[in-house]
């Protein structure tokens, strides 16, 4: 099969040049019919889609049609230029171009174009009627993404609804999380031992959602360390993350009423290179003898280096990441691990802020909906009903 395709392709190339010298033969196939040209849906406005009905000799009749060429012109009678070619059996083509005016292949929108489709055999061809005019224009809504749109709206409404319930004073139950319960003990331990706490925000940028979740946790922990008068060290690997961490810790000290104790030099930048950063943090752990290490945020391969060095130093370690590949190492080598979503929930747990707890409740509701869809979808699929599947199918 694949060999045939290869042969066909080489034939096509030969044919392409061959045609120049022998443009017409009387054995031309029936032309493609019902050619339609129209704007391509759900695009940025630089493409027209052409469809046609296959030539009578394509797959039937003499079965000698090998390809279709798509030609374009700005005038119905003007000179037609080949825009592309598709193998026989295909009945659509997207004539696409660039959106930048400077680009060689610029495709102007809102401009009339006419199309012809040429059915080609080995040594002849025939052309369809001219179709068009058609104009390319950009859409203002991507219909294929409708399920995402519905999901976005539904989820946003759920989150906002629960938050406003929380604002009205409704209280939500949350089950205990081992990793969270350990935080207070861990800070207490550091205080007793008179040793510092190390907080690692991971390798994410300030724009990573996991890092932002970690900032909120850092803020709560900074408040507690300020209350306990325990030193907190935050080495950073991204300058923006460092800036934000400084603000966050400062705010925590302010919340605790101890702005005087805040020391900016304890929240510092080392280097943005993964392993140089880890080498330095390793050193900090052993030399500062940190009593408690937090690893919360985005972590990559360094997770285990940090966790094992921390364990050599005898620190209590609490970790959490949404990087699935690293969770196993944190689970094996640290004392408590916040797994995936638990990291995002932690900020709500630590602050006990009703608004954040409300959002957590919305997450649970969304989870319940997902689970019901999963279960009923799987049952439906067993009976070959793909209704549920379609609800979640996104066309890009």
């Amino acid at each position: 099969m694949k060999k045939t395709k290869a042969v066909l392709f080489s034939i096509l190339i030969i044919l392409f040049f061959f045609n120049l010298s022998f443009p017409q033969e009387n054995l031309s196939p029936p032309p493609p019919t019902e050619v339609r040209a129209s704007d391509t849906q759900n695009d940025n406005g630089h493409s027209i889609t052409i469809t046609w009905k296959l030539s009578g000799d394509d797959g039937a009749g003499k079965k000698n049609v090998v390809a279709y060429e798509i030609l374009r012109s700005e005038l119905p009678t003007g000179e037609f230029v080949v825009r592309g070619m598709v193998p026989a059996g295909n009945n659509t083509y997207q004539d696409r171009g660039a959106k930048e005016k400077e680009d060689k292949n610029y495709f102007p929108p809102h401009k009339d174009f006419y199309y012809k489709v040429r059915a080609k055999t080995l040594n002849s061809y025939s052309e369809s009627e001219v179709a068009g005019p058609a104009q390319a224009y950009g859409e203002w809504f991507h219909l294929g993404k409708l399920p995402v749109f519905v999901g976005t709206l539904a989820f946003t409404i759920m989150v906002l609804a629960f938050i406003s319930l929380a604002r009205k004073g409704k209280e939500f139950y949350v089950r205990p999380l081992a990793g969270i319960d350990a935080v207070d003990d861990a800070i207490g331990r550091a205080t007793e031992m008179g040793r510092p706490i190390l907080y690692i925000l991971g390798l994410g940028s300030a724009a990573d959602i996991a890092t932002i979740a970690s900032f909120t946790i850092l803020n709560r922990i900074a408040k507690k360390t300020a209350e306990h008068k325990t030193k907190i060290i935050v080495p950073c690997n991204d300058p923006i993350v460092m800036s934000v961490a400084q603000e966050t810790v400062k705010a925590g000290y302010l919340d605790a009423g101890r702005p005087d104790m805040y020391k900016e030099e304890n929240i510092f930048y080392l280097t943005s290179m993964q392993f140089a950063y880890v080498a330095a943090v390793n050193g900090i752990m052993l030399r500062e003898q940190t009593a408690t290490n937090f690893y919360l945020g985005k972590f990559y391969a360094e997770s285990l280096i940090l966790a094992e060095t921390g364990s050599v130093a005898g620190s209590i370690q609490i970790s959490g990441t949404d990087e699935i590949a690293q969770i196993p190492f944190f689970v094996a080598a640290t004392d408590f691990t916040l797994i995936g979503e638990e990291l995002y929930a932690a900020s709500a747990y630590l602050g006990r802020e009703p608004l954040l707890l409300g959002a957590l409740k919305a997450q649970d509701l969304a989870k319940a909906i997902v689970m019901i869809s999963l279960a009923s979808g799987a049952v439906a699929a067993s009976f070959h009903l793909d209704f549920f599947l379609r609800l979640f199918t996104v066309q890009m």
Partner: protein
Amino acid sequence: MRRQLPILIVFVSGVFMVIQYFIPHESFEFIYEYAMDWIIIIGIFAMLLGLWSLTRASVSKVQAKAPGWGFSVMTLVGLATMLFLGFYKGNKSIAEGTFFMDLFWYIYTPIQATMFSLLAFYIASAAYRSFRVRTVLATILLVTALIIMLRLIPLGPISGVNQWLASWILTVPNMAAKRAIWIGVGLGATATALKIIFGIERAYMGKD
């Protein structure tokens, strides 16, 4: 001005990015591309903050003659050398064969690779330390890890079975668990993104 405007910027830019996902039209595409470039550019400027922090910390350690200040001198020397070599010949400074690249190949790369390779030791010690039949959960962890590791070891007649079991674990129950984590992370991250956009989660903004 100090608190409200940033929250407004977050809201507007966040909502815009969500909306643009649904709008294929090129006018949105252009703004989207510019916004992405701006963020890259902000990141570049912020690099100076990083260098400033590193330099200041090292210099003050040296000045205070803090314990190990000599090592801070090494950091400063390394930094200054790279900066000098990286700029003194304009944009030709970082071509292959320059001293800059020699330092990269003979100092940076080996240390980096060695740091990474420490994981071989640590993965063994972590496995030794935590893979004990202490609890049900620890036992599950231990048994699956063993099955997977044994796939590389010639086991004679049971090699085929183990190979099959290992790949079944990787593709079936492993995938089920990962999907659960993925979906959970998806919901947690989208909820957090929403909280950021609506200004509910704003600890990262600090306080005055």
